[in-house]
């Protein structure tokens, strides 16, 4: 979870059958592994960090603030951060509330549907530590063991400014190649 899927392709299965003299054959993962060591990855990350589209799935109080952040007043479009309704368009999943036992499978499925590279932001106390509902019988605790969370935004709920700050932190992380969305 959280890794770039194409690196999984094994070299053995793609062994070239006949070698062409004078031509170096290679695999896609070898190319991407090579690129990760070069300056080209900086350029790729620059592109990635400036178009962080997030998925809207309001789950709790933070969901309202998430929607407010994506809309007219706070206008995250300035930073290339656009709310998307489909997980297949999204780069960032914001866990905006309490994850219940019933909702966890759906959330994992949404996460699997998102194309890599992808990131998770834990917004609000509920997704970080359970918040006011840490002792509830129906919520799932320790979300950070389930999803590779990059940024934690405390608050109950965090203000839209805090969410924007969280996105800025995520951008910094991507720029510094420290994010958990990609293997470097």
């Amino acid at each position, binding site marked *: 979870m959280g890794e770039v899927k194409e690196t999984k392709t094994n070299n053995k299965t793609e062994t070239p059958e006949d070698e062409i003299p004078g031509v170096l054959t290679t695999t896609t993962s070898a190319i991407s592994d090579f690129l990760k060591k070069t300056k080209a990855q900086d350029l790729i990350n620059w592109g990635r960090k400036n178009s962080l589209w997030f*998925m*809207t*799935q*309001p*789950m*709790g*109080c933070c*969901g*309202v*603030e998430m*929607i*407010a952040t994506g*809309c*007219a*007043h706070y206008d995250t479009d300035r930073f290339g951060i656009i709310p998307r*309704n489909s*997980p297949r368009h999204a780069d960032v999943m914001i866990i905006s*509330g*309490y994850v*219940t036992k*019933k*909702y966890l499978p*759906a959330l994992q499925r*949404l996460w699997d549907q998102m194309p890599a590279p992808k990131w998770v932001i834990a917004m609000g106390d509920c997704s970080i530590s359970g918040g*006011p*509902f840490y*002792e*509830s*019988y*129906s*919520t799932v605790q320790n979300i950070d063991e389930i999803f590779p969370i990059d940024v934690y935004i405390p608050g*109950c*709920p965090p*203000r839209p400014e805090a969410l924007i700050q969280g996105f800025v932190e995520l951008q910094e992380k991507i720029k510094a190649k420290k994010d958990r969305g990609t293997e470097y």
Partner: protein
Amino acid sequence: MDEILGSNEIIGPNEMIVHLGPQHPMQPGPFRLNLRLKGETVMDAEVELGYIHKGIEKILENKTYLQGITIVDRICYLVALTNEECFVGCAEKLLDIEPPERAQYIRVILEELSRLQSHLLGMGEFGEFIGFVSMFMYTIKEREDILTLIDMVTGARVTHSYLRFGGVRDDLPAGFKEKAIPVLNNLKKVISDYEEMFNSDRIYRERTAGVGVLTADVAKSLGVSGPALRATGVPFDIRKNEPYLVYKDLDFKVCTETAGDCAARVQVRLNEMRESIYILEQCLDRIPSGPIFPEGTPYSKRTPVMRVPAGEVFHRVEDPRGEMGMYMISDGTDKPYRVKVRGPYFPTLQALPPLIKGTTVADVAAISGSMDGCTSEADR
């Protein structure tokens, strides 16, 4: 698949099952709508709840009354103040105290502001669901002004923890009225703009007029309340039927429409916003000076450990979505023995499947959106 829908009918050649949700742009929060379709017609529908059930009733039993205020905030995060009013009102009835007049006015001011922002968001969402995304951007923009006002008083945008037993946490800040009047005046203007925008748009009329029609008798038998009921012509409003706070001294009318369709529900909300502004103007003019907690009592911003006399009470308030009630049992300790939350969206959501049966898929979003939901409160 069959047992999900609760029907054992064999799915015919042109039938299929479509799950809307748990994550779907149409939804105010995660719930699942299972539709059995024949072509484009909805044959059968079922709602599956519980994706954000957090066990608030159990948690409330294990928190002191003061801590409980924080928890009830999160029942429905769009109208945290009305939830608080209901919870605090229950405890006040058991304690047999009444907030001083100034505190009551402050509560009414904040609850009406809260109603305004909730209706704005609800209307914007409805616009988005029927493909009018610009509407959402307009209303969110105006909503921020109101949130700023609420933020100015309570210090929070969404979850306030502002009401206290016998009063409110803080007095209104200096210059509140001067800040509020321009916002309300602007809002009056934009409500007329919205009305014109809605009524002049042919596509909007065709998407909403005559869609999802509820008649008064059906709405009553489904247990619906709030704007959805008032759009059918039933003047049922807890603020009038069972006045709490200072609503009996204030002049306002219950807005009703007769058509009972999606357009009528939106029209009721628009008119209610006008009434809310009128109430706010009266309150800002008439608010008396004085204490915000009853004098000579220990109730204050930080009430010490409070034991509530044993008893039972059922208190109702008017939420933007309808009738909000709480049933509180106290056994004389510092924690409630049982709190039952009766949210307005729970019966409204229950009424959704019979309402969308026989309509087309495209209308499902319009009907669901016109109900202005809050799944969190239905799930609790």
